[in-house]
């Protein structure tokens, strides 16, 4: 005997709200770096020639390579999200791994760049730097703080994307449980699951008087048909963060490496 019992399933997921929250966080980041760009531009207007001379010592080649690396990583990030929206989990994972690798390449380049500066005796508060003109000291102070803070953001982004990688590999299925609200309805029967062709593929134990609770957990494996916005909103939000880090570099690059 088959009897269908309808159980209401509700899982609240706020896709728009989740994205608004991420954008609000990004705005605080824009204001954080905006403050630093403000300090930079004020000191630049006060010491134009010192800034000009100091900027010439930075490696334009490493700066340009890092710009290309970050721009490309933004592309692979966007492609990764598009891939998962199309239900192509494998491609999404490949693009995500590429993004992480490019982020690491950026940090390695940064390491060599800073190391070269340290070798020349230029680091915050170093004797070699303090002997220079005031504007050059300010330039290198801003350089280390701003690219350093940006580097920390890249580092945080790499960790965030690695967590997302694990989440994408393990998940994109939605999972939810329901506890039977009307246990008495099921007493003396079994729960069964059927596939499309009404073939039974799973049957529970007999629900007798000893059963106190039924928990049914559904897992939806990601497929093209089943793909749902809420499944990738976390990946999308991580992508937003990654793109913002890229945008900050887009401004750091001309200010420190180009305007000489």
């Amino acid at each position: 005997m088959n009897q269908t019992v309808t159980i209401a399933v509700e899982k609240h997921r706020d896709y728009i709200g989740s994205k608004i929250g991420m954008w609000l966080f990004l705005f605080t980041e824009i204001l954080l770096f905006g403050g630093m760009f403000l300090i930079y531009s004020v000191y630049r207007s006060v010491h134009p020639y010192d800034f000009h001379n100091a900027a010439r010592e930075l490696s334009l080649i490493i700066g340009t390579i890092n710009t290309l690396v970050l721009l490309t990583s933004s592309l692979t990030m966007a492609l990764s999200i598009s891939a998962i929206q199309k239900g192509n989990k494998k491609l999404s994972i490949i693009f995500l791994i590429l993004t992480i690798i490019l982020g690491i390449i950026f940090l390695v380049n940064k390491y060599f760049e800073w190391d070269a500066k340290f070798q020349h005796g230029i680091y915050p508060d170093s004797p070699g730097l303090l002997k220079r003109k005031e504007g050059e000291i300010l330039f290198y102070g801003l350089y280390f703080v701003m690219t350093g803070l940006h580097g920390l953001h890249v580092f945080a982004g790499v960790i965030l994307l690695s967590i997302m990688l694990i989440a994408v590999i393990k998940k994109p299925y939605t999972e939810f449980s329901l506890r039977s609200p009307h246990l008495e309805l099921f007493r003396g029967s079994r729960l069964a699951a059927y596939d499309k062709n009404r073939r039974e593929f799973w049957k529970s134990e007999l629900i007798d008087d000893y059963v106190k609770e039924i928990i049914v957990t559904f897992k939806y494996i990601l497929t093209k048909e089943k793909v749902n916005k809420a499944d990738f909103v976390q990946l999308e939000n991580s992508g937003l963060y990654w793109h913002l880090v890229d945008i900050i570099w887009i401004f750091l690059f001309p200010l420190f490496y180009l305007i000489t």
Partner: protein
Amino acid sequence: MEYKENEEKVVSYGTYILVWFGLLVFTGLTVTVSGMNLGRLSIIIPLLIASSKAGMVIYFFMHLKYEGILFKVMLFITLLVVTIFIGFTFFDISYR
């Protein structure tokens, strides 16, 4: 389990690659321009190019093109605040 949500706009791979190519062209352009001696323009042009690049990333990569008016207004207010910060500080500096 059936619940409807607005269809998410799925951007094609080609669009993204085109935007990326544009970003590379702009990077090449800004590096080339920095080699020339253009006086005051040598500050303004790189910043204009950087702003265009940032705009492309926000508009396409960050999906602002496909978001509702709320997101656009929020971003506009943030950029306005930053502009006021920087603008008013420079009013102060230039008239000291």
